[in-house]
């Protein structure tokens, strides 16, 4: 592989990481997951820097990345502490719990309630009757219905 192709490959991976992180940040509501998404974006950018640094034979980019990692560690510490405090306040990691900070007069976001399934507990295929009816494991059935 030529240098050029190598660079493209790395940039592609970096770009993908950023995109994944960005989409993750936008679609997930769990604070921790959002935080992880941000970290992924950051790593994508770092990868970008390393790739360009390698391409240009300039170690400056890699030094910068080392620094980013160090700073990211600090940032993660602070960020997680913040997340912890937020979660303690509302006993939830859901970011929508903080929508009270919106402008007054704006209607709140209400989660669409998924209607309870009316259907009875689905019967699983059973073994043909060969003796006594096996005792139904309710817990297991409930668990299965969710998966």
């Amino acid at each position, binding site marked *: 592989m030529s240098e050029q192709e190598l660079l493209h490959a790395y940039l592609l991976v970096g770009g993908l990481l950023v995109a994944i992180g960005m989409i993750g*940040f*936008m679609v997930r509501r769990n604070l921790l997951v959002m935080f992880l998404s941000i970290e992924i974006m950051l790593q994508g950018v770092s990868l970008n820097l390393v790739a360009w640094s390698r391409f240009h034979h300039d170690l400056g980019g890699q030094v910068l990345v080392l620094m980013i990692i160090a700073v990211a560690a600090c940032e993660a510490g602070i960020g997680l502490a913040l997340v912890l405090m937020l979660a303690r306040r509302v006993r939830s990691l859901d*970011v929508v719990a*903080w929508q009270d900070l919106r*402008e007054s007069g704006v209607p709140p976001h209400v989660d669409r309630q998924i209607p309870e399934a009316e259907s009875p507990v689905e019967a699983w295929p059973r073994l043909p009757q060969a003796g006594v009816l096996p005792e139904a494991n309710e817990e297991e059935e409930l668990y299965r219905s969710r998966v």
Partner: protein
Amino acid sequence: MDTISWLTIAIVGFPLVAVLITGLFGARVLRGASHLPVVLAIAASFIASVGLFQQLRLERATSVDGGRWGYAHVVPLWSWVGVEDSGRDPGLRIDVTLRADPLTSMMQMMVSGISLFVAVFAAGYMKGDRGYWRFFAYIALFVFSMLMLVTVSSFLLLFVFWEAVGVCSYLLIGFWYQRPSAAAAGMKAFLVNRIGDFGFTLAIFLIWLHYGTLDFHDVALEQTAAGAVAVTDPVQVAQLAADAADGSNRVEIVDGVLGRRRIASGTWVGGTAGLAICLLLMWGACGKSAQFPLHVWLPDAMEGPTPVSALIHAATMVTAGVYLIVRCSPLLVANPTAQLIVASVGGFTALLAALIALTQYDLKRVLAYSTVSQLGYMFLGVGAASLAGITAGMFHLLTHAFFKALLFLGAGSVMHAMGNVIDMRKFGGLRRLMPYTHATFLIGALALAGIFPLSGFWSKDAIMGAVHDRIHHLEHVAAGEAHGDDAPAAGEDAGEAAVPLWHAKVYRLVYYAGMITVWLTAFYTFRAVFMTFYGEERVPEEAGHHAHESPPSMVVPLVVLATGAAVVGLLLDRSMVDGTHPFSQWIAGTPSLSLPALAESSQPGQFHMAIAAVSTLIALIGIGLAAHLYLGPRDEVRWLKSFLDLEWFARLSSIDWLLRFRSQGAWGAVERAARRAGLGWFFDGLWMVLFVVLLVLATPLLVLRWLSPYRLSYHKFYFDEIYTWLIVRPMSLVAALSAWLDRTVIDALVDWVGWVPRAIGNMWRGVQSGLISFYALAMVMAVVVFVWVRVCLM
């Protein structure tokens, strides 16, 4: 530094220290003892002033060149502003310098001496007041400002303390600020003074423009390695100037406005600019010294505590204007028109204030108008612009300080005993109740009336004599011209020949105004004395049962001041004894007064027997008239009042006399006979016509009555009303209009500007949903848009 410098600093330093001590510790620590630091400081200041006087006398006697050009000692303290001359912009140098010369020394002694007694008096008078410490802090600040005013050696610093004096007067007049009248009087004093100060600032600008410096003294700027060093000592400046002429050193000489070099060379700015400077300075002096047309604040200034009135009227405020004019007399001497205007303003004010004082019932108000009147005399003397006139003006300032402080403190003592009642109609015959106050007040009144041998006699006659000499001089010069003496006169005569003859006529008019004022002064002063201390003994009920002589702390200053008022004239004016005038000889040693033009004018020390006799006679007539009218039953006073109030005039305009005339015997018989003869229609018509004529006449007659001599005087010639309607009301109208414009136009515009961003913000308010994911989406979309635009543009 030598002794003179130290003494000069000490004189102004002591009161400043007292201000700080009383101001910082008065409320908590000193309280009832707040007067102690102030009295001690002013006493120390007074002692230092006397010491300085002695030192100056010694130095002047031994100095080589103290004789011809006066003696002045300049004490440079520090440089306030020092901008070097950069070649592109001219430099600006303002040095804080004090000076010690005969005029300053005399003013310092007067200010600190009178203030000392006033402060002692106030310690008794103000006892128990809530703002005791505040009062004494203000007093000390007032004395400090006034001492600085007479001690500094630059117009700019003079202006600084000129304003400081104004502020102190505002604070003290409005001392009882809970009383609306006191607060208003303080405001009035301050505002009227500001009008005068405006003229003074303009004068300072003009002086800066035309003279290039604001210092009184000459300065030699010596260029050294460390920068320019200012040398101010007159002898050294002369030496450096001589060296500079040889070219042996690099010295820039700045001639002070009133410096010795300028006096010797006589390079004053003349023409319109010179006249404008003089008149604007006079305008400033008119404000501070309560001369027409800015005299209205002084009588109201009595709303303050009485010691303050004594201080303002005698020592620390109104004398500032006279001092300024005397200090600037070289500028005045160069401008005959300005002299004439100063003298006319003085003479007119003297007469006007005396006329107003005739009918006032408020004891302090009578004294206040007499102050305005006496200040008019001082202006008159200074306006005569001869050495005799200027020194006489200063002499009158000194003697007036004694007897006016005495009179005001006496009035304060009366007020103290009478439960703060000051209306002379409400009390009388106090001479047995308050023997000391009566005796000292009488001495003050005699001095004010100008009775031999009290101090007022000497100073007033010196002024009248100087004006008289001036008239003679002008007429003599004019007569010399008329006799075909058209050969160009040399030197000073050429300047004086330009004075037209009508100046002499104006001076003559002013002189007669002064003479009439002598009579009026004697009359109103003794009217006050007789109404207060003589006649039937009456005490207002406000006084309760404790109408009594004042405590010793108030009586002692009265006695001391009375002694001063009695003997200071005899001590300092020996013109009658041996033709010398120690006071004037001392004052004449001021550089400002050592002008060649003044040296050739009429000299002090000539006793004008005729003038003295005439004015004494006039004064005695005035006193006699007052005694005749106010001792015993005052029926004639009542008649005189109704006569001067034009009551007969009012009666003329009523129809009563017509009806009475008609019913009279002889006329009635004639009319009845005529009616019987069938001529009734004639009489009916006649009465009808007369009735209508009277009705028509009555209106203007009633209006005229408001301008009757009595009412003009009682209502102070309606000056306050005229000012209210001509100046105050239009100004408040303009102010109201401005306020309306401000609120409805300018404020509305500003409000609108503030409203626009709010409105724009409101439009985007709904976007704030509080959902972080949404924000993130918005950011991403924005980035996408930006990138897309960028890509499209490339």
